[in-house]
């Protein structure tokens, strides 16, 4: 999660701010314009960092929104008189947001490298649109002859043609953009965006619509980039299709990484460093003719050295030492009063085929409320596929999944999660970059899984939920630990805590005991017994001792088919089960 900048970083930022505020008084017009451009580029890279550094979505076509923002000012300006500045900037933001919505609607369907490529392609298409067609004067660019201003009743209050006031306008917007994005990162929405980077599968399983979350982040980031573009157009009143070119996007990514991705302020340092370095190396009077003639070499080598020396970017040098804080919190013994979302889970003739393989074959089973139901079976029996069907991670080929009697088959995972089905994964699945508490907060927030929430309105309620969840699994004293650095067992406990915090009342747990020692196993078994009071638990587990210790019913799958279902005693005596699976391992009944 985004941390507040360290004291050192704050001092540096304050110095920079002071420097920039004072700058117009002691530099010439070129220096002022240079600084203005620097600030505008800073807004652009900060917007990219929100998407790339916080959301983990690497957009290689971000210049498209910058370019569209710039062209919006061109569209709104006329040669008759100055356009309204608010209108012009608003048009930049608006048009960029619309474009981001359109491009993002497609790009957000993809992930990873494919996302990079789709955004790159989108940027190139925008470039072609403006370069090859006449919508805005084509390849050689277009003029904005009269820059926007703010005129009220004949009085020009602010004229973008005035270099100094325009400089302050840009500086103002940089500060606003930075603070706004900082604030946004710490709202429920921002938490979800950062969850995207940390673990989007988990986010979906908590009930968030990952696609919408990505799209929202994409639009927010695109809109801010549009603002930067609109300001850029006002610097000189010249817009060109090259603003869209992939190199601009590449440069922006480079500045973000150079400065330190995921810090929001770091990219500003990156932009400052890169642009100044290039400028300095090109200035013959400063570095001599030889160096200035080969400035690319100098810039390239400097960047290489920068990458090798500082993996975390320039901001990495300003990081605060990690603080270990141990808060103790009052552990409530009672669960927060929350309406139980669902009780019964059932399937009807559920099937899933992969190619020719019937991984789950015509399974009809019902899991009654407030019991622990264990699903066992040999490897390859289709157990994990079955859980994936229950949670919506996979769509069934045929049949129904019923939550309280309503068929949810075919619904996306997050919708099923919202109906109260929480699941854990075979491989532990948490937000490694978040603290334990932040993990749970993101889970608790999922009780109201809207993406665009900017106020922690239910903060105290969530606090109580989190405290309860952590207490139940025994992680209360680990609330501030970084989840990714905890042991495997603790991570499993955390995962269950998240399910509880998210309000899931039907818990589907895929091998929660895998990799746990006997003591941890016992703790989790006790936990499951405890949870049974007000949760329906479906459990896949190989640890037969634990299964027989905790399960109220057993469901046995083999080769995708249901071969037995009933109480542990019934199943234990089932000959088919013994030959297929248990062998000599079924614990004997006491005294027998």
């Amino acid at each position, binding site marked *: 999660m985004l941390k507040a900048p360290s004291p050192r970083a704050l001092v540096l930022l304050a110095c920079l701010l002071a420097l920039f505020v004072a700058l117009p008084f002691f530099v010439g017009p070129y220096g002022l314009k240079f600084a203005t451009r620097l600030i505008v580029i800073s807004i652009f890279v900060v917007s990219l960092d929100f998407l*790339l550094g916080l959301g983990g979505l*690497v957009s290689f076509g971000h210049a498209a929104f910058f370019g569209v923002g710039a062209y919006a000012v061109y569209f709104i300006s006329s040669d008759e008189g100055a356009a309204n500045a608010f209108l012009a900037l608003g048009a930049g933001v608006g048009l960029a947001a619309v474009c981001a919505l359109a491009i993002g609607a*497609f790009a957000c*369907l*993809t992930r990873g*490298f*494919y996302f*990079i*490529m*789709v955004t*790159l*392609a*989108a940027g*190139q*298409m925008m470039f*072609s649109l403006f370069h*090859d067609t006449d919508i805005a004067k084509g390849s050689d660019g277009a003029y904005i002859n009269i820059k926007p201003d703010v005129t009220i009743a004949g009085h020009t209050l602010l004229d973008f043609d005035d270099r100094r006031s325009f400089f302050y306008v840009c500086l103002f917007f940089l500060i606003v953009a930075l603070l706004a994005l900082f604030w946004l990162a710490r709202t429920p929405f921002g938490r979800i965006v950062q969850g995207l980077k940390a673990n989007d599968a988990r986010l979906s399983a908590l009930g968030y619509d990952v696609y919408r979350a990505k799209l929202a982040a994409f639009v927010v980031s695109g809109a801010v980039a549009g603002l930067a573009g609109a300001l850029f157009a006002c610097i000189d009143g010249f817009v060109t299709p090259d603003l869209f070119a*992939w190199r601009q996007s*590449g440069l922006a*990514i*480079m500045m*973000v*990484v*150079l400065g330190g*991705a995921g810090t929001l302020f770091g990219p500003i340092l990156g932009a400052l460093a890169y642009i100044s370095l290039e400028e300095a190396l090109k200035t013959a009077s400063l570095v001599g003719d030889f160096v200035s003639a*080969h400035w*690319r*070499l100098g*810039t*390239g*080598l*400097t*960047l*290489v050295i920068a*990458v*090798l020396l500082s*993996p975390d970017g320039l901001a990495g040098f300003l990081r605060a030492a990690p603080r270990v804080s141990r808060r103790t919190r009052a552990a409530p013994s009672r669960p927060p009063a929350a309406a139980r979302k669902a009780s019964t889970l059932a399937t009807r003739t559920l099937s899933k085929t992969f190619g020719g393989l019937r991984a789950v074959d015509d399974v009809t089973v019902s899991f009654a409320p407030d019991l622990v139901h264990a699903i066992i079976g040999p490897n390859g029996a289709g157990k994990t596929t079955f859980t994936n069907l229950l949670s919506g991670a996979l769509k069934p080929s045929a049949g129904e999944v019923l939550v309280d009697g309503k068929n949810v088959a075919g619904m996306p995972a997050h919708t099923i999660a919202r109906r109260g089905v929480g699941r854990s994964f075979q491989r532990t699945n948490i937000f490694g970059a978040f603290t334990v508490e932040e993990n749970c907060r993101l889970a608790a927030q999922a009780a109201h899984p809207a993406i665009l929430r900017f106020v922690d309105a239910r903060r105290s309620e969530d606090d109580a939920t989190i405290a309860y969840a952590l207490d139940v699994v025994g992680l209360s004293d680990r609330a501030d630990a970084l989840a990714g650095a905890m042991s495997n067992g603790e991570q499993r406990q955390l995962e269950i805590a998240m399910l509880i915090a998210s309000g899931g009342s039907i818990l589907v747990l895929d091998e929660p005991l895998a990799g746990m020692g006997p003591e941890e196993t016992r703790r989790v078994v006790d936990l499951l017994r405890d949870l049974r009071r007000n949760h329906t638990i479906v459990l896949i587990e190989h640890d037969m001792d634990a299964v027989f210790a905790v399960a109220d019913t057993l469901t046995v799958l083999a080769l995708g088919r249901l071969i037995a279902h009933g109480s542990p005693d019934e199943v234990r005596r089932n000959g088919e089960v013994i030959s297929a699976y248990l062998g000599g391992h079924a614990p004997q009944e006491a005294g027998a």
Partner: protein
Amino acid sequence: MSLILLQILNGLQYGLLLFLAASGLTLVFGILGIINLAHGAFYMLGAYAALTLTARLGDIFLALAAGIPLAFAFGAAIEWLFIRHLYKRDHLQQVLLTFALILVFNEIQQTVWGNYPLSIPMPSYLSSSISLTADLGYPVYRLALMAICIVLALVMMFVIQNTRAGRLIRAAESNPEMVEALGFDSRILFRIVFATGAALAAAAGILAAPVESAYPGIGDRVLIISFVVVVIGGIGSIRGAFLGSLLIGLADAFGKVFVPKFSSVLIYALMALVLVLRPSGLFGRQ
């Protein structure tokens, strides 16, 4: 009708050349996990090296024979100097470093060879054209180029499928640490793979040089299109790169003639279509 046949030929020829460039990119990306923006620069250096080497050795094929080992050594050196520090780092830092390498390579090109477009002579025995239609000839060199690309593609696929080196490469693609634990030095393996990628890009540049000439910025376009090919084919898949290249080549050839207005966005549209139908590319693993 003959126009269509011609365009098929043109598309295949362009696609095969693309394959040579893209196969190296997909190998490096698939196995080392490195997003190598400098891949196009290797192509560019290949084209310029072809110039110098043909001047020295007299024939483009001798230049190819000399250029491939040179490029391999150069790639190995780049890996040793820079790339090996990036394996455990974020993709973004790879982007940053390889972007910086583009700047450096461009400067080297400008300093060593200058900025005038330069021509690389075709071997005289291949410089004629055969007549395909009454009005149109097809340069023999291009046909030879296709043949060489096909041979190289077959050799590559054979190596990957049937040899020890190929098994090693496939194994490293899924689990490099395990390859190391089984007694193979992954440092050397990675260096070889990166150098192979560089050599493939340079080979493409050398072979293309007599028809393409050498001029600044020649690598940029190849880079972007190669990435599109890698995505269409599926990351790390040589077969995918082959199919993707041919698809792009054909789409480009037909697009320019039949939908000239949209030819610049056609390959991206094709990529989008493939990603909608198969989100991990044609041969990519989920």
